[in-house]
């Protein structure tokens, strides 16, 4: 698994399922800056579980890890390798 691939998939998911049409998001965009709320963050975490087979443990679900595509992808990689 590659972090760049996770970033790309997360971006694709957010654009197709969470964000309004035409809203751009980059890997370092803060979720709160594009209106992604707690409900959508959980949907994204569940997407990671479905897509990559990585269930993020409770201790990984920190505000720091859940703030952007990049931080979430990084956290996913760490959890996958543990």
């Amino acid at each position: 698994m590659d972090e760049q691939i996770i970033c790309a998939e997360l971006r694709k998911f957010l654009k197709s399922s969470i964000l309004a049409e035409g809203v751009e998001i980059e890997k370092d965009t803060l979720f709160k800056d594009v209106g992604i709320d707690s409900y959508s963050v959980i949907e994204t975490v569940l997407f990671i579980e479905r897509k990559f087979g990585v269930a993020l443990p409770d201790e990984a679900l920190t505000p720091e890890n859940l703030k952007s595509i990049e931080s979430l992808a990084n956290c996913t990689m760490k959890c996958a390798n543990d």
Partner: protein
Amino acid sequence: MSRLTDIPNTLILNGYDAFQHFIGTVHAAEKDSCTNSRMIIEMEGVLTEQMIEDRLADLEQLAWINSYKLKTGGLLHKKRVEIGESPQKINVISGRVSEQEYHLLHFEKIPILSDTWIEIDLIYLSGERTALILSNNHIILDVTGMKYIAELLCGLINPDNIDSWSVNRKGGKRISPLNAFGYLFGLITQKVIDLRSGRGVQYVSGYYRKIQFSEEETTAIETQALQSGAKFGVILYYLACTVKAVASVKKSKKGIFWVPVTVDTRPKGKRGPVLQNQISMMFFKVRADKVKLIEQLVAEFSAQMINQIKLKIVQSYSSLINSIKSLPGWLYGAMVKLPSKGVFSSFAFSDLGEFSMESFLGKKVITVYNLPVNPNPPGFNIVYMKFRGTLSVVVGCHDTVFTDEKFAEFESHLKETLVHGGE
């Protein structure tokens, strides 16, 4: 005034039929009350009826999406509502508010907006201030839609940049109406506590109370939220503190607190539709004997939130609302009465997040807050909102739910728990 029938019939209005039926048949026939939610915008200066009329004339969205009614000084449709010694109580006499502080608004049988979707009331306060009160039927317009209406009115949103109606959520697996009904009936068979003192109370009076926190207190609350382990934002911390405060003053006979929480499922990142067919809820429940540490409650609610999203319950609820439109009238009428038996929830909770509005049609905004919809039951609804960095909590409460003393106790518990994390 625009009427519901002005809505173009070429539009796909999935769910609209249900709303129209709801208002046109069930509520109007039963003269049910207390189903309006309100946003209050208090500003410096005098806002005239003509200024609002002129603005409304420019807004095509409001002309056809919403049937509206504009009134001056007639908030409660009553000549006199309540006389109280507390400075927070108000007198509404001939439509005029005589007290400057009106954080505690008493109501008595708030009229259903049977022929309008939105009502705009202008209340003139002393010291050249105006309170503009937007009222809407909560079944039709959720709190975010209400916020958009306010922003449309004051010109913060370009009307061309906002959708008027949304039928389908992006992504989201479709849930069959059968499953959705199954879920609903699963819910209503649950035994939950009933906060009302008596069953079958159909029309009761009640009040709203605003609890305002300072900037320092708001910062302290958000710090506590982070320390409580709330992973997905402050909302679950607010919810946990509220449940704890309720539990501290209201004992549960059946042993379970059941709390519906509103969910905004609009696509994120832009202005979404004013009206949508995805008005949805999540449902949290906790046993009264588990209401101990805030951290435990937050963890419990986090798990329930994840579980509900995983099980697509939010979509189920939306599907249920949409599927209602195809029901025969008698069955629909029976269904809307089911929750009114008081089996559904202990209290209702909303968090509107942050709101910012500097001026309204050129008048400097002093404050904005929402009054929660206050249906009966549960007759005890709570809404959180941040405005200019300060948190406000408004509680809508039927007289039968709490005595004044109990309410003061609840307020004190809630403040203490939010600021200090329940320690």
